[in-house]
């Protein structure tokens, strides 16, 4: 057989194209991959474990119900080490895998800020749990929040403390990272609007070993109520104990960390009779109850927001990809933003154009270690 120049060119072309065609065919037949950055190690490793369990439970349900676009979905987890450099590395590892169609970022705002530039460069949807309001208001169209942001939590804490508990002399305590600073600012603004500007606005550095100066500052301020934004549960535990030991027994309304499992275990009776805003409260809706049952059956511990937001994130992302009918990032984005009245564990999702899915918070009370749902406050603005 004589090899013509045309045959030779066709052969070369086929040779070059073959690996890509095989790879493409393989990709089309493979699972749908979702990447997740989670703290497997570091100070938040315990809550990171809960987050992964929540995501996996959702994925199991999605796969049982037929999967995503008719294929089984797969979760690829990278350890973010509970640090900013850690999550940047974890996200870059996941982003390098071109067949991952969507991601779960962090519940910690400071970590979401750290990966935000890389998210913009990648241009794929990233579901987040960080509650700094700025995250969805700084021009990054690929971040989608599965928890209510702190502009809502601040307003709910202020509203509950001023209107329901009737307290007007506030001490505001917050960590000095992105989450705590934004939360403290939101609470201060909400209190000022209600005519009760805080008598003390106190920041603290994460991983403090001693809160005596903070407790004494609260005592000296004459505050009759405390509002707080703690990032890490061990800080919250140390503070709660010292607060009670030094004789400060004013009402305390805290951000969601005040009612999570780790904090309850560490602080014990020091957190009795405190109030918390909770994006997840088991008795707040049918979706919350359903998740609570699934989670308790599978994990054998009480559910909290660490697992509920990842559970919802997987469900929202899966529903959006199915709705888009494609793994094209732009189409998935449009599908997420069009999601309305979606019942999740955290509440009813109605995504706005900024990427915020939830717009209200629950108020819960620590009744001798049991978290009791009080009321839900929803905002429409």
């Amino acid at each position: 057989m004589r090899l013509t120049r045309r045959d030779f060119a066709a052969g070369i072309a086929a040779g070059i194209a073959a690996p890509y065609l095989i790879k493409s065919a393989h990709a089309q037949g493979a699972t749908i991959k979702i990447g997740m950055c989670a703290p497997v190690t570091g100070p938040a490793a315990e809550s990171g474990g809960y987050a992964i369990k929540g995501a996996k439970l959702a994925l199991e349900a999605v796969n049982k119900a037929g999967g995503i676009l008719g294929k089984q979905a797969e979760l690829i987890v990278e350890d973010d080490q509970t640090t900013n450099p850690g999550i940047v590395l974890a996200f870059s590892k996941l982003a390098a895998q071109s067949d991952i169609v969507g991601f779960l970022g962090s519940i910690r705002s400071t970590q979401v800020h750290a990966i935000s530039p890389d998210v913009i460069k990648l241009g794929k949807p990233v579901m987040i749990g960080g509650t700094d309001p700025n995250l969805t208001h700084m021009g990054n169209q690929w971040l989608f929040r599965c928890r209510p942001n702190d502009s809502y939590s601040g307003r709910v804490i202020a509203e509950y403390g001023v209107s329901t508990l009737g307290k007007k002399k506030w001490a505001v305590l917050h960590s000095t990272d992105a989450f705590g600073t934004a939360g403290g600012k939101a609470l201060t603004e909400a209190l000022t609007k209600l005519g009760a500007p805080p008598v003390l606005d106190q920041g603290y550095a994460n991983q403090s070993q001693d809160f005596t100066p903070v407790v004494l500052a609260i005592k000296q301020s004459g505050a009759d109520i405390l509002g707080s934004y703690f990032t890490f549960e061990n800080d919250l535990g140390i503070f709660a104990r010292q607060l009670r030991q030094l004789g400060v027994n004013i009402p305390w309304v805290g951000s969601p960390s005040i009612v999570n499992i780790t904090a309850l275990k560490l602080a014990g009776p020091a957190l009795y009779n405190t109030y918390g805003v909770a994006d997840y409260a088991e008795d707040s809706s049918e979706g919350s109850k359903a998740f609570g049952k699934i989670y308790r059956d599978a994990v054998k511990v009480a559910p909290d927001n660490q697992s509920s937001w990842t559970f919802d994130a997987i469900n929202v992302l899966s529903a959006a990809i199915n709705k888009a009918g494609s793994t094209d990032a732009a189409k998935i984005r449009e599908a997420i933003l069009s999601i309305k009245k979606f019942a999740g564990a955290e509440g009813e999702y109605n995504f706005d154009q900024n990427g915020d899915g939830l717009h209200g918070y629950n108020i819960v009370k620590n009744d001798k270690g049991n978290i009791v749902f009080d009321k839900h406050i929803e905002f429409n603005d």
Partner: protein
Amino acid sequence: MDLALQLLFTGIGIGAVYALVALGFVLIFRATNVVNFAQGEFSMVAAYLMVVAVEAGLPYWAAFIVALLGMALLGVVFNLGVYYPLRHRTYLPVIIATIGASILLANSVLAIYGPQPQVLQGWFDTPGIQLGPVYLDSQYLLIIGVTICLVIFNFWFFEKTLLGKKLQATSQDKEIASLLGISVSTMIMITFIYSAVLGGLAGILVAPVLFVSIQMGSTIALKAFAATIIGGFGDVAGAIIGGLSLGVIETFGAAYISVPYKDGFAFLVLVAFLIFRPQGIFGERVAEKA
């Protein structure tokens, strides 16, 4: 005044923890001329051992002894596994080895026990006592008491006993000590055991206050290291004074200047010492000898 007294008590309490860990730094530095960056992890490992022993049903005092015996064993393993193979090398490979060991210890505990922070009850049922305007946390009282006892013990041990003098001789000049018939490797082994037990003691004492977590050791060790430099690297009294000073400075700094910059005060003092008095409060014994 009430505020200052409360701050002073807390500052001394937290400073005593830094002092205990700093003491471990100093003893190993004097014996081997290297800084053991795993000293903080000794505290963390001991706290976990204590939790495991208590959960296993041992009485608190028995769990305490088991944890300290475990630390003594860790001191032996650490000496044989980390220091001994590198003893003839320069200080740099040994320091890097201690950093590696620190990472290994932290991740081993993480792998065995999981990431969950644990609660360890204190020695006393009562959390503290109110003395006039000052609340005295019972655990901090215990920590301060133990630190005072250790200061006295260290003085007696190093100045009055033959073994203590042998340890001092080894730390001052290994070759001469060896010529005098002192077993240098045994003395270094004893130093590692004592340092591991001291670090462990600090961890067990502070665990009811700070909880038991993988990070607890590194957080304390960083401050203890600063305390060691402030007190004068290589000086036992310096480590105690440095630790207590650091605790008091950062507590008062947080109360009267800024809470978020609490850690900053400690390191500001460290930087000031490094610039104006690098030998620390009590100077450096090696320099004095020269």
